[in-house]
Each structure stands twice: as C-alpha cells, then as structure tokens.
C-alpha cells in the first residue's frame, strides 16, 4: 500500500483537527493500519491558522510531520497560499470552491467543491461541514473506507449527532464521486 500523507489546513474552529483525528483513527483502529496524527496551531482558540498532519501506512511511521503532502485540504485562502507550494507533484488539493480561490500554480490536481453550501442546504447548519469535507476526501483518495469513518464518528460523537454526521459524510463522498475526473 502506498503511504498516504495528508495535510489539512484552515482556520481555528472549522474542525480541521477533528477531521484529521477521525481520518487517522478510522485507519488505525478500524482498519488495523498504522496512523499518526499531529497538529500545529497558534495560541488563539478560534480564528488562528490551523494545520493537522496525518500519515497512514502499513509500515511503521517514525517522523510524524508531513513535509510534502500527497493530499492537501485547504479551507481558507491563507492555508491554500501557504501549503499549496508544498504539495507533491501529482498530488491532490481539495478545497471548498466558495471559500478558496487557489491561485498558486502547482503540478497537482486541484479539486474545488461547494461543500459548505451543500451542508447548509441539506442540514441547515454548518456544524458537520468538516465531516462533509472528510467524506469527499475519503472518496477522492480511497485512503480509508466510509464504513470505517462512520465507526470512528460513532465512537467520537454523542448519539444525537450520528445521523447528521452520516448524512454529511455521504454528501461529501457523493459530491466528490460525481465530479471525479
């Protein structure tokens, strides 16, 4: 299996770190692979630049940080500008097309989807936005299965949120599949 190196970035409060934890946990606990999740953020509780790295591999993982991601998630323009230049040639950048205009030229696929708007339309509230992004990311990369992500979501969230999380996860996955090139 190839080694997956994810870099997820955005603004504090968007759920970037939660998304990274869920992805890594789905791989490590529910698929029995090795995964390491680490994070980097400023002193602010909300609004500061946030970054979380996830490595998924069948072999051991030593250095826990991602220097060159295969897969980049950018949820703000600032994040896209900062991290797009790091992406590996042939990699993939997933972003929300209403929030981010990636104007950096890189040798990587750039996939923009109106995920936030879709979540608002379907659920009427933005809380599961990050779960929707996660669904799209899983569908595009096939790094972990949606079933494993559902299990991770159920173990991390209270029951009241399970249904919305599941809807958001599949919404993201469906949108990604529909526009797979």
């Amino acid at each position: 299996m190839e080694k997956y190196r994810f870099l997820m970035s955005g603004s504090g409060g968007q759920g970037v770190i939660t998304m990274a934890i869920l992805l890594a946990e789905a791989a490590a606990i529910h698929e029995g692979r090795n995964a390491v999740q680490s994070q980097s953020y400023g002193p602010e509780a909300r609004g500061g630049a946030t970054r979380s790295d996830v490595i998924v591999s069948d072999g051991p993982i030593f250095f826990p940080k991602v220097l060159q991601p295969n897969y980049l998630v950018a949820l703000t323009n600032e994040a896209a500008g900062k991290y797009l230049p790091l992406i590996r040639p042939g990699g993939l950048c997933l972003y929300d097309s209403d929030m981010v205009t990636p104007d950096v030229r890189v040798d990587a696929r750039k996939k923009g989807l109106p995920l936030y708007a879709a979540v608002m339309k379907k659920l009427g509230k933005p809380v599961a936005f990050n779960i929707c992004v996660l669904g799209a990311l899983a569908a595009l990369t096939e790094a972990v299965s949606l079933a494993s992500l559902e299990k991770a979501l159920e173990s991390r969230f209270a029951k009241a949120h399970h249904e919305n999380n599941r809807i958001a996860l599949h919404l993201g996955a469906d949108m990604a599949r529909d526009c797979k090139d």
Partner: protein
Amino acid sequence: MGRTQKQATARAAGRNAGAQDIRFVQGNEACVLGALYAGVGFFAGYPITPSTEIAEHLAEQLPRRGGVFIQMEDEISAMCAVCGASLAGAKAMTATSGPGFSLKQEAIGYACMAEIPCVVVDVQRAGPSTGLPTKVSQGDVNQARWGAHGDHSIVVLTASSIQDVFSITVEAFNIAETYRTPVILLFDEVVGHMREKLVIPPQGDLEVVERLRTEVRAGVNYHPYLPREDGRLPISDFGGVHRYNVTGLFHDIFGFPTEKPEEVTKLVYHLVDKIENRAHLLARHKEYYLEDAEHVIVSYGSSARSAIHLVEGRRRKGDRIGLLELQTLWPFPSQLVREKTARARNVFVVEMNMGQVKSQVKQAAVHPDRVFLVNRMDGMMVTPTDIGKVMRIIEGRGF
C-alpha cells in the same frame, strides 16, 4: 454540545469494542492512562499548553475512581498540594509546561529534601519565559535536573511514542515510590499532542510498585527518616496514627531540624547517593542497529522519531548507522552512552535545544571531539533532513 454529552463523547473516544483495549490517543492522554494504571489517586495542577489535556482527562477520571482532582490557583500551590497528598498516602502527580515548571521548582526541592514520592510531568514548549506556547522544544533538560537549588539528585524520564509514554509513566510512579523521590516526566509538545495507537496492557502485565508503609504500630515511636537496612524509608500516612515532623530543613531521623555537620553531611550523601548510585538500574533506553554502527545518533523524545526515520532510510542504502534512544535523562546514563558510542566514528546528538544532552554525551564519550550536535530551537520539530545535512557536512560530503 452540552457538558454531559461532552463527557459521554470523551468516554467513548477512540475506544475499541474488541477484547484488547486499543485506543487512538494523544501522548497526554496516554500519560493519564499510564498514571491511572499505576494507581494515581491525586492530581493538583494549573492548566497550561501543551500539558492541559493531562489535567482535563484526570479531572474527568479521578473523581470517578474515588480519587481527587484539584485545579489550584497556581503551579506553586499545586506542587505543594501534591507533596501533602503524597505524604497523606496517595500516589500523587501534577503536570505543567516550562513557565509552570519554573514555579514548581521550590516545592520540587522540598519533595527531594523531605523524600516525598511524586510525579511531575513537564510537556516542554519553547522558552525561556512564556516563549512559544504551542510550539515544541526540549529546552528543559537541565532545568529538570537542576531547577531546584542545592545538592540533590532527581530522576528524569522521557519517551518518543504513545505506547512508551504509557509505560514510562507507570515506571515513573514505580521509581518515585521505590526511592521516595520526585520523578520528572519530560515530554515535549509533539509527543504530548500527537495521536497514535495505544494498546493498554491488562492490569498485572506491567509491574506496579505499591508504597512501602511502616509496620510500626500506633502508639509506638515512628522514625520517619530512619532508613531500613536496604536504605528504604517506610512511610506512615501523614495525619494517620503517628505524629511526626516533615521539614525542608536538614533533619534528623525524627524529621526535626538539625544543624549538626555530621547529620547534614550524611543526609546530603543519602539524598544524592540513593539515586546516583543506582544510575545503572534507572537507565532506560532503546537501541536500533548499534551492533555495527559507524555513525551513532543519540536522541530522545520526539527528536528520536526523526532520528530513526533517517536511520531506517540510510540503512536501506547500506550505511552503517544506528540510534541510541535515551529514556532516562537523569541520572545521566554515562556508562551506557560510553559503551554504546565507544566504536563509533562519529556521534550525533539530536535534540531541540542548544546542546543540553550533547554536553553530557561529550563528557561520557571516549572521543568527545567526535560528538556533534544537530538541533533546532525555532519551535519547529527537527527533521530527518536537518540531521542528514549536518551529517553530510561532518562526513566531508558537502552540504
């Protein structure tokens, strides 16, 4: 999300339904789980990044198990509360980061002098002062050893993986209880915040040392500082059946202050020797490919992860390179370092400070002039590339 929901979430977080208890947790949570495994009954602290999750999880777990969690007004009082709780019979700990660790030093010195078993976690961030609150560093190595004033000795342990954080925390409590000493767990931001798989061993798989309590009955004189033949000091739970004195002053076998030179000298030697003479017993380490290594890296904590990453890569290319990962930093395992680096052409110490462990390695090494430092202290984790660059220069292969 309401408070109760949040708690339910935290309880369920990362738990596996299978027979084996496997979780996906942060280093800080692994430290909590290790402490609970070892039987911690008391925590007092003041939250500070990047150690806060330790307080957060213990605030939830301790009351549920009949233990006590107190958020104190500051780090000084927290360390004092830990001393008191431990004397009264609980396995006690606190957790902090650099600025708070500075504040705790006076009471850590008190715990050394009064021989109070306790565990102090310092999840290091970049300093001095408030420094970089959310960024990694390993700059507290010397403070952990010499933060308290006066001649004393102390045990400082560290780890580089979530699994090792768990087991070294159990060890920390065991050593604290065995030798009646504060033990410092010196983690760093990367290890504290990073998440990895943790397999929690069934209770009984790892040794847990229980406190040695006095057999002196109520109504019979108890000498709190009269060592047994093997040097150990049985404790009578303070506030229990014996009245006795505990002080930060030099004291006699009753715990009362003394200025008699011979008693003072004896106590200094006792406090230092009980740890320094057992340096070989306290030395914990891991080693990778050292048998035939021409280049030996010495590292610890999260830096050791960068080091092993580089070592694995270079081994695949046929380079004879190995890693000595230290888990005991103090008492410094000089003998071990000397032996493991004796045949090395070059020794590289990888750490995130200006050479605090490097100077110890230089003292221990057979060829101190072949010891080189690879470091970073800009809040970023030292990378395998950083190490590779320095090695190439030293080996005369250019930048």
